[in-house]
């Protein structure tokens, strides 16, 4: 790593941690219904939303009601996204006259955006009308993120309440998350991004003349519109000259801002944040990358404030940061090392800081080079964001394994907004239980006794994603229809499938893009994987919230294991890595590990 590389990584991590406290404090005020300044402006909006929809904001919900309200709201959202895609051809804001999306792809995308995954089986600029992008996808970017935050806040209430049968009001948590946190941050970020060159317009795509025309071959079409074939059955090719370039534009900045902040990740364009009109400069890249981890990091502090002991929040943030930074320092050198297959060719892969980035540049943009592509890959998979600024399929085997493993850890190293932290709290519950067994202390966390019911629910949330990922991968590589979508040969082809299931089964959304996933088989398999992994985790977490809220608070005593110490941080990291390593090492050995060995021994 060059000194500039160190500097960029350090600047990123330090800025992130510096912002965690102020934003975390602000969000705690929002959820504790204190004045936050903005509510002088937006309180009338909030009140009228409640009165129009017949919500009494003072009314508390049991965990079961909270879960039903949440599921119903998300189901409605998925239905709306599905319908918008199916009827977009007949709806306004479709200047390119894009046609209706196929039913399987529309199902996949609806599941994808309602679950905060934002897996994309489609190419944005060639598939989705402006209306679908805004009213379908952007809306889900907001409300799926707000849903995750609501569940987290409900879980926190479980810890702070005693002998209570309620955990808050879902409608209020949802509305406040959207109105006071996600919308203002997105508005600011969107305008900063436009300043750097991200497009924001309702105009149709631009056609511009090329300086030098491009000639290419394409199959010749007959009078019936079908490709002509010669005597051998091969398509007849004709040479065509392209003198113009069509430049896709659209209302991108507003969507890009929330897709980064809400750990959504669904790009406006096909290549996501590698596209120069979605991520034009190193500064836009920094802002987008910072936004990936901003809210998940700050929520740790919010958690600390709300449970009345900020050290608890810092401890969890420390555990996340230690894993993140360690993996950054594996990822960047892996990509900087370049491709050994090029060593015998007349190619310069060395980095000469001011002249070229060097390294494995296939699928990477010049303005981001190695450092920012590798750093982004770690950040986007640590969080369940899944946006990309380079093509992960073209990463070196180790460079591709780190993002894959970060997803497989259950998206708890920062993770999704809300969902990352509630996932991590599940691991903390397991950690206090395990340490309780080891030293013979009654397990308790934040003053609540952890008993069989909580452990069962926590175990479900930790075991469902691996089941979906490994079961789904096994299914996909056993059937011909699953294998036929694989693009790269050998072990890397297996990695493509494993990556896809790891991404869908942990609600990340990034991809090894070579896999042709826009088929009825993968659209269905991955759609179901995303729904399982989101809602089969949400419901047990809410059940724990309800169970904890009903308990009394145990005073801290001699037998209490402190959960803010470096020892507990190490224990928490240990549990996360142990579960992740034991579950996924065999599968990783078949994919990236084999490929790495092949790569370094091939001459």
């Amino acid at each position, binding site marked *: 790593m060059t000194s500039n590389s160190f500097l960029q990584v350090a600047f990123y991590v330090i800025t992130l941690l510096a912002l965690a406290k102020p934003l975390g404090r602000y969000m705690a005020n929002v959820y504790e219904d204190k004045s936050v300044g903005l509510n002088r402006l937006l309180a009338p909006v909030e009140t009228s939303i409640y009165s129009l929809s017949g919500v009494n904001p003072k009314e508390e919900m049991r965990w079961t009601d909270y879960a039903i309200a949440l599921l119903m709201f998300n189901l409605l959202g998925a239905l709306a996204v599905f319908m918008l895609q199916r009827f977009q051809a007949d709806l306004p804001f479709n200047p390119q006259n894009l046609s209706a999306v196929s039913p399987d792809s529309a199902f996949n995308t609806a599941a994808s955006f309602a679950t905060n995954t934002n897996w994309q089986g489609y190419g944005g600029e060639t598939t989705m009308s402006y209306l679908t992008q805004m009213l379908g996808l952007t809306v889900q970017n907001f409300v799926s993120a707000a849903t995750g935050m609501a569940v987290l806040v409900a879980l926190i209430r479980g810890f702070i309440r005693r002998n209570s049968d309620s955990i808050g009001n879902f409608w209020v948590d949802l509305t406040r998350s*959207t109105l006071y946190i996600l919308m203002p941050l997105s508005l600011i970020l969107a305008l900063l991004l436009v300043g750097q060159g991200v497009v924001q*317009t309702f105009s149709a795509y631009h056609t511009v003349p090329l300086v030098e025309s491009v000639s290419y071959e394409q199959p010749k079409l007959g009078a019936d519109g079908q490709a002509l074939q010669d005597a051998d059955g091969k398509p007849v090719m004709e040479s065509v000259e392209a003198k113009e370039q069509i430049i896709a534009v659209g209302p991108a900045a507003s969507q890009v801002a929330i897709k980064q902040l809400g750990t959504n990740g669904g790009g406006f364009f096909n290549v996501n944040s590698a596209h120069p009109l979605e991520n*034009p*400069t190193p500064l836009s890249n920094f802002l987008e990358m910072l936004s990936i981890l901003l809210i998940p990091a700050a929520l740790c502090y919010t958690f600390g404030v709300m449970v009345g002991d900020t050290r608890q929040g810092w401890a969890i943030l420390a555990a996340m940061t230690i894993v993140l930074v360690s993996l950054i320092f594996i990822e960047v050198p892996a990509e900087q090392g370049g491709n050994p297959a090029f060593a015998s060719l007349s190619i310069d892969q060395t980095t000469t800081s001011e002249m070229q980035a060097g390294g494995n540049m296939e699928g990477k943009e010049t303005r981001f080079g190695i450092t920012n592509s590798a750093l982004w890959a770690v950040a986007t998979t640590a969080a369940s964001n899944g946006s990309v600024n380079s093509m992960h399929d073209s990463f070196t085997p180790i460079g591709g394994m780190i993002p894959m493993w970060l997803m497989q850890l259950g998206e708890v190293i920062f993770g999704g907004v809300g969902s990352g932290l509630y996932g991590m709290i599940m691991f903390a519950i397991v950690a206090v239980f395990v340490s309780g067994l080891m030293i013979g202390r009654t397990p308790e966390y934040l003053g609540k006794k952890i008993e069989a019911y909580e452990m069962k629910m926590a175990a479900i949330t930790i075991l469902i994603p691996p089941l979906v990922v490994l079961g789904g991968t096994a299914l996909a590589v056993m059937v011909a229809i699953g294998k036929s979508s694989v693009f790269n040969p050998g072990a890397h082809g297996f990695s493509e499938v494993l990556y896809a299931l790891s991404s869908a089964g942990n609600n990340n959304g990034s991809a090894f893009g070579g896999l042709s996933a826009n088929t009825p088989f993968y659209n269905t398999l991955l759609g179901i994987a995303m729904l399982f992994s989101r809602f089969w985790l949400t419901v047990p977490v809410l059940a724990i919230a309800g169970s904890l809220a009903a308990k009394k608070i145990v005073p801290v005593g001699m037998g209490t294991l402190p959960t803010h110490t470096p020892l507990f941080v190490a224990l928490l990291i240990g549990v996360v890595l142990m579960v992740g390593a034991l579950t996924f090492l065999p599968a990783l050995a078949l994919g990236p590990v084999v490929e790495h060995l092949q790569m370094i021994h091939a001459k």
Partner: protein
Amino acid sequence: MIKHLKPAMILFVLLSVLTGFIYPAVVTVLAQIIFPEQANGSLLTDGKGKLTGSILIGQSFSSPKYFWGRPSATAPFAYNAGASSGSNLGPTNPALVDAVKARIETLKAADPKNEAPIPVDLITTSGSGLDPHISPAAANYQINRVAKARNLKPEKLHALVEAHTESRQLGFLGEPGVNVLKLNLALDNIH
């Protein structure tokens, strides 16, 4: 169950209007007022107001008298800005090595006397297929070829490349690069 249906539906509609219409509309209006050029795609126009490209979107160049950009994997032709795409070729895929070898041959054929190793970004495809930049090393590598094709002194081109090299943003963010379209338009304006 039923009692949650009404708030779910109305709240969904209200939040959809707020985040799906009002929010993007407000961003668009503000963006068009504050940053009209950027919001519309950083488009370039010639003297007569005709569109000639976007400063952020690369174009394909293959004539020896122009600087060439990154190889592009977009279909059906390179730098199709209507359908961005990467190659997605894995590092151990033989097709990647074959494609790279073919690109090396093309570069060598256009400039047989150049024995220097080729900067890696000049023979690998970009993530978007629309990368507007190449590294300064990749620009320098091509100077002799372009100079010969245009009957210009290499020193003159060195100066031009240097003038078009964008250093790291704020001094340390990202990587230095040369905007190929800008550089080539400047080349055409030399005469």
